[in-house]
């Protein structure tokens, strides 16, 4: 009985996506939708296979992953450092927070001409855009996590005579960690969305380029393939973030 309900629980999240794929395939096969506008899932699969054979898919996929990772690490660390600084020091907060808040709401797309001007059209501008995207979620959550620590906890730490470093490693960081991890999880999502934007800027590689190139001549199968790849990437990054959370927050449960 119990085992059965676990298997059902496992399958339930896949029911909707798989069901949609089935309906989609049959709709195309039965000519309810025209092939030119929406290719069948099997055709997307064939397209993926062809791109794999020419080596294009692997190349673009790995390049995208590289850009995303470097951008995320860069932006995430800057966001974390800024969050810690502003969360722990009042001077820093007064000096930096309102500026960061102003910068935060600038749409990434509008930054592109500026980035091209300053950083060119090479890798730097793409990685920078991703870094900018990932910076803010990590910053806000780190900052929020630190500022909303129970003051009594801090008081206790101080009365135990903890040094500033110890206070940070024993109280501030562990209690802010759950919120920081939420920020990281969110940043991992933003990472992919900014990367697509970044890769439309005169790029000749990456999944975003593939999608854009396909869009030029309305090759719907490649466009849909790229969308599926993004969805899978999103799922994988979320899986990583979730497992990271479970692992790091073990002590809480």
């Amino acid at each position, binding site marked *: 009985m119990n085992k059965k309900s676990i298997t059902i629980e496992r399958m339930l999240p896949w029911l909707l996506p798989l069901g949609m794929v089935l309906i989609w395939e049959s709709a195309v096969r039965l000519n309810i939708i025209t092939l*030119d*506008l929406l290719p069948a899932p099997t055709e997307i699969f064939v397209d993926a296979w062809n791109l794999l054979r020419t080596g294009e898919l*692997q*190349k673009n*996929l*790995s*390049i*995208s*992953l*590289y*850009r*995303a*990772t*470097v951008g995320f690490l860069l932006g995430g660390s800057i966001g974390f450092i800024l969050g810690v600084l502003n969360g722990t020091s009042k001077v820093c907060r007064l000096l930096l927070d309102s500026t960061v808040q102003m910068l935060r709401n600038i749409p990434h797309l509008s930054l592109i*001409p500026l980035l*091209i*001007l300053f950083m*060119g*059209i*090479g*890798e730097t501008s793409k990685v920078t855009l991703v870094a900018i995207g990932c910076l803010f979620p990590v910053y806000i959550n780190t900052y929020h996590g630190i500022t909303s620590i129970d003051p009594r906890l801090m008081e206790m730490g101080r009365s135990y005579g903890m040094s500033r470093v110890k206070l940070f490693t024993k109280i501030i960081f562990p209690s802010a960690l759950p919120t920081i991890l939420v920020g990281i999880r969110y940043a991992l999502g933003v990472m992919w969305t900014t990367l697509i934007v970044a890769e*439309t*800027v*005169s*790029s*000749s*590689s990456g999944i975003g*380029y593939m999608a*854009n*190139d*396909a*869009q*030029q*001549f*309305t*090759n719907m199968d*490649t466009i849909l393939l790229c969308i599926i790849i993004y969805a899978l990437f999103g799922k*994988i990054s979320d*899986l*990583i973030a979730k*497992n*990271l959370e*479970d*692992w790091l927050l*073990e002590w809480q449960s």
Partner: protein
Amino acid sequence: MQRTKRKSLLIILVTVWTLIAIYGWQQIYGQDDKSLTKVVIGYQAGDEIEIAKLHGSFVKKMKAKGYAVSFREFQNGSAMMQALASGKIDYGRVGDTPPVSALASGTKLTFVGAGGTRSLGSGIVVTKKSWIKKASDLAGKKIAYTRGTSSQYMVLKTLKKLGLTTDDVNLVNMDTNSAALAFAKGKVDAWATWDPYVSKAELKQQAKLVVSGSDVGVQNRNFLVSPTSFASKHQELNSLVVKYLGEDMQWANSHTTVLTKKLAAALDLDRKVVQRMLERRTFALQKMSQRAIKEEQIISNLFYAQKVIKKKVQISSYVEK
């Protein structure tokens, strides 16, 4: 148990992720040859440069002369002009209109070479359902075009010839990708564009080319442009690039079958679409001619008169001597 399982899943995922990312890093930075001078050339899908890239002999000849050529693809001419303005590309193959707008907005560029015309493959296509039979039926209709590209000039010239103004039609400015979709779905009646979009619309959507460039005197010539700061210092390179590209264009004109196959694969287009595009087009690349300069001057004058650009541009002062 559950925890160790989670932990190992996490480690596997992160390791695989990192390995793929490292592979990507190698893909980007792996194959650099330091001994050669780098030359970056911008292009757009299916143009002269892409043909030279597919043919491969241009890169080889340049390498023999000590230059490592790399190519950068752009979605449209105005994006390319942006990169050119900041010196991020050394050369760029562009249509007739973007350099005029770029010059008017203060970009310092030099015309290095002129390509062939595309007057038969550029124009205004209409959907099967739109009941437009001839150019004059366009009055009052919804026409998609892209600002800053040669389609803008096409529309202005057509209206001028019909004796209409921009108020007599419903002009919609959209990028090429959106326009292609809007046209395919019948959201616009007409679309000012160029090959291979024209040939694709004709063959795949039974669209009709009611106005072609040759009907209204739009040559839609291609140009090779370069930032002035670069072109003035590399005159020898300028003529090398023009010469070698010109040789590849001669190859392109005499090897239509091979080219059709290669281009269709590179652009992921139907062979028939590519074939029609190549049939009505002759490739060339040579030094700037008086005729080409004059064509550009006419565009510049019309744009200034129609207030598309705010500054008068004297094309002949931006031409490689």
